[in-house]
């Protein structure tokens, strides 16, 4: 369904009747710009029928004012000098539409963000506002009536990332009757949450609340679950994304395998030899393995870099014989699928800070220095030590220290606070006390327990005897100064409340490593063509008003890929992202700015100079006529071809050459 062509014929236009409005924005603009003077000046310009200044143009009475004026004075052009068009252009366009005037007869003048807020000198600011107002008035004379372009939205969605954020979003979309493709890079969904033991502040077990949702994803008819897969290309635009997904071979037929693990037992490697990623390397697994007991899908996977048969081809393949359902397919090839979806929800999560970057904490040098994730696996009953907290040499630690802000709130690594490590560390402290009966000391700068029930959890830890020392740990070392310190890890820290440097011998140290963006966040950002803050988190359109939407229509964010957050906030964002996606998909179309380019067939000579310029290949050549034409549905309105057409035969709605030249002239002609 191609929307109505916007070829407004250049009929001879009657002299436009312009209404000019300048907004005080309370005092935001009026403080530095003399609004009355601007209105008085505008009234003197040709075509301006009336010019008003008003305290709040974007308010209902403000919009009502415009609508009355349009009806009363038969205005057919409106210029509003107020804030950024990115903020209220759609508000005023809606007001014009309600008054029966084509909404695209509006032109806004940014005299707040670009003038009053950034200049102090009242006279210079007013002069600048006057020039910009004149430019807008001269521009709006050339505006034409346009219709927004309706782009159909496919009712399918892609959810990228199978952590709790992706799972929750996918389930919501599926429940709403939309087809969902959930792509997860690891062999199983679950993300970091699956590795946790209990969750704060309620201490309910992560697996108990996550596993039902994972199996719901597996069972849901509307969800296509692609694990061990990655998105390698995204093309198209909102409502019509073409996503290319590469599925890595598991060397197992997913349909046949039921996860009985006979093959794992039969593997030539009698016991695990390779570090188990799920247990953060604390235990070992075989080349053929099930990621973790509640893995979804409940299918084993063969690690191609470790399996003898895949690496050298010389193996007795005892696994194949052990599998009565012969689900093992050694010649399985990677598959590349291309799917068409309407919306994309990015929920790719986070990575943990690598503590070897801070050598003074001794991670990697002293065996009994762990990260919170490793400690999480130790206290976890399905972990490598079945929940028993043990040092690397198997001994039970009698004293444990947890060091907060490792890598976070540090200008040399990450300046941001990772939000969850305080609570995560306090939860671990309780669990370690419970599992190993050890004395636990938490070294902190401040305890940040801002969530619901979080501060009460902090009280509970204090009551249960967890030690808190306020000071940033300088060093973890095995340099013993007294006999009492022999054989222990000594933490040197200045206890800022006590007022002196202390040396605290401990058996085990846990580093509360902070969150950082995924290692490949930059490549993924380029594939999705969304922008990224300079730290590497994906950039939301507006930190307060648009936290889950991006600058690219149809692509939404959920969870830690947008910034550090805990599980409650992540799930809330996943719900929000799903709702935003559903809003698009349910409506079935999206109205896009009609700023597409168009070619006048009489003017085009068929020189093809424009064809290579369009990244969306929206410009095609009509062979019979020898003329180029633009497919309005594909054109995204960048205007590169308009600037490049050597005979000036391509124009762009809302940004016609005449309009821009009028604006240039308006800005520069002396007052």
């Amino acid at each position, binding site marked *: 369904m191609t929307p109505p062509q916007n070829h407004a014929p250049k009929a001879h236009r009657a002299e436009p009747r312009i209404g000019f409005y300048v907004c005080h924005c309370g005092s935001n603009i009026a403080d530095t710009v003399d609004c009355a003077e601007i209105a008085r000046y505008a009234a003197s310009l040709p075509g301006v029928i009336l010019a008003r200044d008003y305290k709040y143009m974007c308010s209902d009475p403000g919009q009502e004012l415009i609508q009355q004026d349009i009806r009363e004075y038969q205005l057919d052009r409106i210029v509003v000098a107020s804030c950024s068009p990115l903020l209220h252009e759609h508000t005023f366009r809606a007001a014009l539409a309600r008054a029966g005037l084509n909404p695209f007869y509006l032109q806004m003048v940014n005299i707040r963000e670009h003038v009053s807020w950034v200049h102090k000198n009242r006279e210079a600011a007013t002069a600048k506002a006057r020039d910009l107002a004149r430019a807008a008035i001269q521009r709006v004379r050339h505006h034409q009536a346009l219709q927004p372009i309706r782009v159909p939205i496919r009712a399918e969605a892609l959810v990228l990332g199978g952590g709790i954020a992706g799972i929750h979003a996918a389930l919501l979309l599926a429940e709403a009757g939309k087809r969902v493709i959930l792509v997860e890079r690891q062999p199983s969904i679950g993300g970091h949450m699956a590795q946790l033991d209990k969750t704060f502040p309620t201490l309910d077990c992560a697996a108990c609340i996550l596993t039902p949702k994972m199996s719901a994803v597996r069972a849901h008819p509307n969800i296509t679950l692609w694990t061990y897969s990655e998105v390698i290309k995204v093309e198209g635009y909102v409502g019509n994304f073409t996503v290319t997904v590469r599925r890595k071979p598991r060397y197992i037929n997913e349909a046949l395998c039921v996860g009985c693990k006979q093959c794992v037992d039969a593997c030539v490697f009698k016991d695990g030899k390779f570090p188990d990623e799920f247990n953060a390397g604390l235990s070992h697994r075989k080349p053929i393995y099930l990621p973790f007991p509640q893995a979804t899908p409940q299918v084993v996977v063969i690690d191609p870099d470790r399996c003898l048969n895949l690496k050298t081809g010389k193996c007795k393949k005892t696994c194949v014989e052990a599998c009565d359902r012969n689900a093992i397919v050694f010649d399985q090839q990677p598959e590349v699928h291309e799917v068409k979806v309407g919306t994309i929800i990015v929920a790719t999560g986070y990575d943990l800070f690598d503590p070897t970057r801070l050598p003074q904490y001794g991670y990697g040098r002293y065996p009994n220095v762990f990260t919170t994730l490793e400690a999480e696996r130790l206290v976890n009953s399905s972990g490598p030590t079945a929940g028993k907290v043990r040092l690397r040499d198997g001994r039970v630690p009698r004293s444990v220290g947890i060091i907060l802000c490792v890598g976070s709130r540090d200008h040399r690594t990450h300046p941001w606070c990772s939000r969850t490590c305080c609570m995560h560390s306090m939860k671990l402290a309780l669990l370690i006390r419970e599992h190993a009966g050890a004395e636990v000391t938490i070294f902190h700068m401040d305890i940040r327990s801002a969530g619901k029930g979080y501060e009460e959890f902090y009280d509970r830890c204090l009551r249960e005897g967890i030690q808190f020392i306020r000071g940033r740990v300088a060093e973890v070392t095995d340099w013993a100064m007294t006999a009492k310190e022999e054989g222990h890890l000594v933490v040197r820290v200045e206890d800022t409340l006590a007022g002196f440097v202390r040396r605290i011998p401990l058996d085990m140290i846990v580093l509360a490593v902070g969150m950082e963006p995924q290692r490949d966040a930059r490549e993924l950002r380029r594939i999705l063509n969304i922008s990224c803050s300079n730290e590497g988190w994906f950039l939301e359109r507006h930190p307060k008003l648009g936290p889950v939407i991006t600058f690219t229509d149809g692509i939404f964010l959920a969870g830690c890929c947008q910034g550090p957050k805990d599980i409650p906030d992540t799930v809330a964002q996943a719900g929000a992202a799903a709702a935003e996606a559903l809003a698009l998909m349910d409506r079935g179309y999206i109205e896009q700015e009609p700023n597409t380019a168009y070619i006048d067939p*009489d*003017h*085009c*000579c*068929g*020189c*093809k*100079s424009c*064809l*290579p*310029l369009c990244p969306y290949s929206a410009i095609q*050549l009509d062979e019979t006529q*020898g003329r180029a034409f633009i497919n309005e549905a594909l054109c995204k309105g960048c205007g*590169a071809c308009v*600037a*490049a*057409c*050597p*005979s*000036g*035969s391509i124009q762009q709605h809302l940004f016609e*050459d005449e309009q821009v*030249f009028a604006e240039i002239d308006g800005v520069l002609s002396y007052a």
Partner: protein
Amino acid sequence: MPMPKPKLAIYWCASCGGCEEAVVDLAEEIVELLQSVDLVFWPCATDLKRADLEHLPDQAIFVSLINGAIRTTEQEEMAHLLRQKSRFLIAYGACAHLGGIPGLANQFSREEILRYYFETGPSTVNPEKAQPQPSYTCGHHTLTLPDLHYKVRALDQVVSVDYYIPGCPPTPTLTRNALKALLAENPPPPGSVLAPDVALCDQCPRKATKPLQLSFTRFQRPHLAPIDPQQCLLAQGFLCLGPATRAGCEALCPRGNMPCSGCFGPTSRVRDPGAKILSSLCANLAPKTAEEIDAVLDTIPDPIGTFYRYSLPRSLLRGKVNTSPTNHAS
């Protein structure tokens, strides 16, 4: 008494005489033309003098074709005189239409030009550094010479112009159609360029051979490399300005195995021909890094001469601006 034949005047200002030739190129039709018009002024081909022109009442001349750019005070006077005497004034040929090749002089100040010609030029022998003076008296005679303007101008930058016939020189068909239209009393809309308002590729025989996705890695000079007569010149890496130049000449140069140099000027929708050509060509350059881009741009040795060959006076900047504050009017 039979209707008096419409009067025709032809005059040449800063021109090479090629446009006079173009009129003669009408060949036999000149006879038929002369029978239907009363040629009152054509200094290049007849002995009619300025006085003959001054005696005519205003608007007496039906149409006058002025070719050549305006460079001297005399040419300015003659332009005003012909404007006064003519009903239709036509800027005939690229020089009058856009400033033409003489317009390229706007890259230099008046002093630089005079010094070059009368002092430092390689073949100039002028030890006393004598320069032409606007007036010179010997005995009781005073001789006067027209003065050289600081800048070259197209005709419509001096007098109001009714129509433009583009081309360097305009083709006979163009001239014939224009005169026929005027003589047949159905004049086209005032101020229009009497040539199709679409780019040259429309008439170029090589259009089909231009690839759909052409991006440029280097440009070559037409005299330094063999030119394949069939294939699109841009595709071969020659800087052909066809896409940015008006049609009307039936692609004379590409048919003569030479790239179009843009003499018909831009279409009506373009304000600055050079900027538009540059915008299109450079957007389609292949390289992405500064060094590689510069390497390609180095294969265009004279950007002004290439992009503004016929149109420098009518470009938005009109010529070289000497930003050193001292110089007065250049």
